[in-house]
């Protein structure tokens, strides 16, 4: 009798847990693409970078010597801190645990286990379109 009642109470409790857990996780998806006005980034000097919002994360647009742009998610692959591009050293730097990436976002020193995530760039009229690799729009 006791285990019957206990089991029933336990099952009731467990069934209430699911909506509580569901409620605690807000719906959010990282964007597949963001559109930026090209004019804001056209005058970027070579070997300099500018951030843009990639959902809740920072993205970095960096101009390379031949005038084309590279885009990265500017979040360290180690423990998620935001990284900065240091023009003088041509490297990305994460101040949290001193992680370094080369100018192409490849991890070269410190604790980061993986390169920075790259994003794809295309131009549509006066708009820059930044996309998650593989996303077809």
């Amino acid at each position: 009798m006791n285990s019957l009642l206990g089991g029933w109470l336990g099952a009731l409790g467990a069934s209430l847990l699911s909506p509580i857990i569901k409620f605690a996780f807000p719906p959010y998806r990282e964007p597949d693409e963001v559109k930026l006005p090209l004019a804001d980034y056209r005058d970027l000097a070579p070997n300099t970078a500018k951030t843009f919002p990639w959902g809740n994360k920072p993205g970095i647009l960096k101009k390379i010597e031949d005038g084309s742009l590279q885009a990265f998610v500017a979040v360290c692959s180690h423990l998620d801190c935001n990284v900065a591009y240091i023009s003088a050293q041509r490297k990305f730097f994460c101040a949290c645990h001193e992680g370094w990436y080369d100018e192409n976002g490849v991890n070269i020193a410190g604790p980061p286990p993986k390169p920075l995530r790259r994003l794809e760039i295309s131009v549509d009229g006066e708009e820059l379109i930044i996309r998650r690799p593989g996303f077809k729009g």
Partner: protein
Amino acid sequence: MKRLRFWFEDRLGTAPIFAFMRKKDVPRHKHSFLYYTGSSILLFLIIQIVTGIMLALYYKPTLEQANASVARIMTEIPLGWIIRSVHSWSASFMIALVMIHLVGIALVKAYRRPREATWMTGVLLLVVSMLFGFTGYLLPWDDLSLSATKVGTDIPKAIPVIGAWVTKFLRGGDDVTGDTLTRFFVFHVSVLPLVIFLLLAVHIFLVQKHGMSLPLKAEVKKARVPSLPFWPNFLLRESVAWLVFFGVLVTMAVMFAPSLGPAANLLAPAPSGIKPEWYFLFLFQTLKIFPAHVLFVSGETLAVLLILAAGIVFFALPLIDNRPAEKKGRFFVGLVYAGLIYALALTVWSLL
């Protein structure tokens, strides 16, 4: 007056509690100061509750207002700066005392049978205290606290299977955002206080139930240990300790008030020289010294799993160290010293 006392006695039946208090003894020996570390933690907990409620009168836990509301407390609210400073310093004092209390008790092995559960609730109280510190650190919402929280909430991700889920729960999403701030505020002022009171009630009940632990040698030899009545002798001495601690606390709070950085910007790179609160430094440095890969495992996963394993050993210490008076017991004293030296060394290293 007497009738009033009887009226309450009839309804509450508190007489046995007072009788117990009158009879309670505190043993006197060379490690007696450890008894005071436990009760002094209560002083700082009370200060945290009072100053915390005061700060919550003006603090606003949202992305837009958090930093400005702390700035307002620091600059406009009468005595606001010192209330915040006392809250911040008292947190440090409390965690320091909890650590001293636990390490001291581990070294004299006061956790031995039948006090294993008292020790375990004590370790959980340390964890809850550190979670209080961790959640509270984000609330001013400046650039340092944002980066520290990003790292701190990313650490569980390294735990296999449930890790990513824990991180998402702590952050309220994939990233640290305004939702995280509000969530941390709720943990800090509502969830964790409930947990700490529950644990503390069990802990204090167990301390009373089992009485004060005697030194291991005295217990083995069945020697008589002189003792001090709890009421009023121990309490009087304790109150002197409280006054001294309170004086030091307020002095520190006045001399070294915590700063407040510019409001956190979710897109800005982490500021250089970020460091967590001092009691996380040895963990911070541990994460830093692990290389990206150790054999085929990520260094981060390995570091987090090692820290977790060490925590479980610490929690279960009385169960593992089950022959305290024998040779095996001495090994565990060495282990506690080794852990202590490791933590101190890495803390110093992280400050260099």
